[in-house]
């Protein structure tokens, strides 16, 4: 992980999702495009999993920006939502049959290792269309929206410098 001399804020841009599951991989696709931009002082990583694995990746950073797919009722594929941890308050306490979700993992980290947790976590959630069919490609509407989404995230990343 590159260290930036003279900087105090360490920022991670993390793409989350499954890159072979159509739009579920939208966050990964976005992260790869952002990595190409080589923004100074920003680490870019991918996480093809969720839950507690997230803690292994985010610990030690001051600021983490997570890009992931989301599926909302009536959402339009390709729409972008900017969220914070507090926005997940309604779902944070549940648990799935086999894993815990990202906000719960973050809350667990804040409870157990608060000193190593990022002070700020932002979420960019990309409305997905298909998250069921196995494919390395995004669906057309999401693919079309991706450059604009990447531009918006780049803007936020550069503001943080």
């Amino acid at each position, binding site marked *: 992980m590159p260290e930036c001399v003279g900087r105090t804020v360490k920022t991670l841009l993390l793409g989350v999702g499954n890159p072979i599951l159509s739009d579920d991989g939208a966050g990964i696709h976005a992260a790869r495009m952002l990595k190409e931009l080589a923004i100074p002082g920003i680490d870019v990583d991918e996480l093809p999993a969720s839950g507690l694995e997230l803690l292994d990746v985010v610990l030690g950073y001051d600021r983490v920006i997570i890009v992931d797919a989301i599926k909302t009722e009536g959402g339009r594929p390709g729409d972008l939502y900017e969220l914070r941890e507090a926005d997940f308050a309604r779902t944070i*306490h549940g648990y799935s049959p086999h894993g815990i979700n990202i906000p719960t993992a973050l809350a667990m980290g804040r409870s157990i290792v608060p000193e190593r947790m990022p002070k700020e976590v932002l979420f960019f959630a990309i409305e997905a269309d298909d998250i069921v069919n196995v*494919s390395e490609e995004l669906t057309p509407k999401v693919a079309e929206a991706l450059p604009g989404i990447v531009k918006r995230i780049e803007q936020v990343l550069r503001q943080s410098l």
Partner: protein
Amino acid sequence: MAGPIVNDTPVKTTERKITIDPITRLEGHGKIEIFLNDAGNVENAYLQIPELRGFERFCIGRHVMELPVLTNRLCGVCPAAHHIASTKALDAVFGAEPTETAKKLRELFYMGQYTHSHIAHFYALAAPDFVLGPSAPANKRNVLGVVDAVGVPIGAEVIKHRSYGQKVQEIIGGRATHPVFGLPGGVSKQISEEERAQMEEMAKSCVEFGKFTIKLFHDVVLANKDYLGLVLNTDAYYLETYYMGMVDKNNKSQFYDGDIRVVDQKGKELVKFKPSEYLDVIAEHVEPWTYMKMPYLKKVGWKGFVAGPSSGMFRVGPLGRINACTGYTTPLAQKEYEVLAKTMKDLGVTGPVHHTLAYHWARVIELQHAGERMLELASDRKITSSDIRGPYKEPKEGVGICEAPRGTLIHHYAADKNGLCTKINMIVASTNNYAASNTSVVQAAKAMIKNGMVSQGLLNKVEMAFRCYDPCHSCGTHALNGGPALEVTIRRKDGTVVEKLRNF
């Protein structure tokens, strides 16, 4: 801390259909539908699991060498198991015998996976039911509630040892979550003495953590007579099925390699088979209400969702393995295996343990075994040898099997002479358990919901019946709002919603 909340107060429902459904309604997640009769008793219940689509089509025509990396993308929970089964299938496809060092490295890597996976299941998913209680308010009955109850230092140990499991996988596999090291006949990377020593230290700590976890299980679960009552409740959590698991030549439990042993309801061996023979043993049944197939024992036949010797239903995973084997090769796991056997014997149970909630006990024994085996392998200085790759031949067809944390995992591939995939068949652990886990849901629902009286606690006790299988269906979906909570919808006969109960 306050004591766990085991029971709550049910309320009368006049509805006929109860659905336990993920809040987000993502297709990748299952739901439970419970149908009541006029008297308000359970007529039937269904665990519905939609499947990801198009994986076979995605793989055909690709080089088989890609499959260990592609198949592990199916799952964000047990990718290492897919990687190992896939790599073993490639051994068979290429007629390649891995070197001794490669076998050791793969198994050591795999003990990291077991450590990580079993810790996550026991502490994050099972413990809320036991530490907080099955009827505790849903907004407390989760891993954060467990940390609140047991204290931050124990939570930190959980995180630390789960990370050790990940670290071992990262050192050997190249990446913690989606490894890239498996090759036909071996592995891609030698390890250094420094890495070996680092893993040895972590393994020592994992052995101690295994001891701690077993003690915690005794203190929290077995010492609580209400929980022991639940574990021993034969109306709700008891199926006399066949059991399947991997064993060595002495019938001791194995996770990485061995023959597959199936025992009957009395513990007698029905069949022991090599991976290449799996199609002689397992057939798959199809039901109209689900896309998922239900494997059963060919020799016995499919008799529906019933247990007993005439039904080919079988169980895999920790309970399947502990019943299919005669013990463990490592001392601490063996000791606890004997404690389990004696405890059950004192309660009048001999032979296999048919009590579904005993999955959790078997799982903590396996966590202990994984730590001990990790230490044995990491202490072996020969594991740093450069002899990590054996010869291989022209590709053909082959089967690889390993024990995923959730049960027997089968990968079967065929390739043309250029190595391009012409056939792929996979039977994953949770599929092997599908018929049994569905039957467990029906059984628990019938036992818990009487005369139309339902409550969150009772519905959670129905969920407990399938949660102990640690089901991992269609687990490739990780959308941000995926799979966090469960919701129960009570409907009129025409399907319209009149009331919702949420567990968050």
